[in-house]
């Protein structure tokens, strides 16, 4: 067995080993962790974040979404947004309607005020 054959085999072995995946545990750190830190959120507590997300998904379900839709919609929100929603969904602004009597009355009053000035 000559030396260059041994070298070739070694090189092939190295290439094969590089192809092996890391253990599942060692991971790149996601951008969202950097983002949470940048928003001065406490060092991202993944348990708290998970709980918040499930809470909010549950609340969205109670408000008429399917479990699947609720999960998909929560997944598109940042940790900070989820934290702000938790427990507040009933209270937060929900844009709905463009025509209303109150609006027309207010417009009337505004016009009157501007004319008066």
């Amino acid at each position, binding site marked *: 067995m000559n030396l260059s054959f041994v070298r070739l085999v070694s090189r092939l072995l190295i290439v094969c080993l590089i192809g092996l995946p890391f253990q599942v545990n060692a991971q790149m750190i996601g*951008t969202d962790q950097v983002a949470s830190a940048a928003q001065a959120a406490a060092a991202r507590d993944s348990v708290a974040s998970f709980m918040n997300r499930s809470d909010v998904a549950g609340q969205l379900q109670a408000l008429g979404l399917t479990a699947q839709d609720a999960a998909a919609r929560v997944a598109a929100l940042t940790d900070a947004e989820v934290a702000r929603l938790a427990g507040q969904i009933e209270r937060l602004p*929900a844009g709905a*309607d463009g025509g209303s009597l109150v609006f027309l009355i207010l417009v009337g009053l505004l016009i009157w005020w501007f004319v008066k000035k």
Partner: protein
Amino acid sequence: MCLGGCISLPQSEALRAAPPQGLPPRVELAQVPFHRQDDFLCGPAALAMVFNAAGVQADVESVTPLVYLPGRQGSLQAEMLGATRRSGLVAYVLAPRLEDLLRELAAGTPVVVLLNLSFKWVPIWHYAVVVGYDLEKREVIVRSAGRQRDEWSFAFLEFFWQDGNHWSMLALPPGRVPASARESEFALAVAALEQAGRAREARESYRALLKRWPDNLIGLIGLGNVEFGFKDLAAAEQALRRASVAHPKSAVAFNNLAHVLAALGRLAEAESAARSAVALEGPTLPQARKTLEAILERRVSLP
């Protein structure tokens, strides 16, 4: 009713006193299509309009399941952002300034605004889309509810806009940076797009972010991560190495750089980067340790 004393519209007043510099006198984004809203569906209608403007096919029917909440008979602001991301666009909340809104229009991006059409304590919330302005007339051009084209004075807009803390948002096509962008808010907006699973679009927007702010940490790490996901290891290394140089205290930059170097087979360098990550400690220490362990194991197993 204390209208006279209660109405204060400082932004309109300020714009009357000192018109904004460097803006064209008149802008109208006539190409923004109109989607008429049905009952309670001003959220989906507004989004459909700005999605179309950003090059994404959408209508009230397709957007409704992304954002409408039946139990509230309306759409929450956060979900307006989420729906935008799920449609492959960057959702960016503007600063609460009318002038910034005008700058975005001048740059060609229509703006969704949240309005309260009623009294503060009995609000009726509504989303409308601003598609233009006229500085001389001090007016904006709006698509709202059943009306394709309305002209509202700045004062009128401000009056109905203030209760929602002057909230407004953009739906940006990938690669576009808002005219009034603030670095940190825009970086977070792109990261949120990545987190929503739109890696391809996020990559384009990270590149645009970094063109403008080359050392932005979220941008460099985000780009590195996304390129790694696309198996462009050279690009990933470049971004993460720049991150580690511009931010030598970022354990995340070193940790992720270590992963890329290991994937490239450069284990000695990978180990060095992983050791730097571990040395920086911080909340990501457990992950950095695992990275180092994995690299050391691989080095040991090689001849």
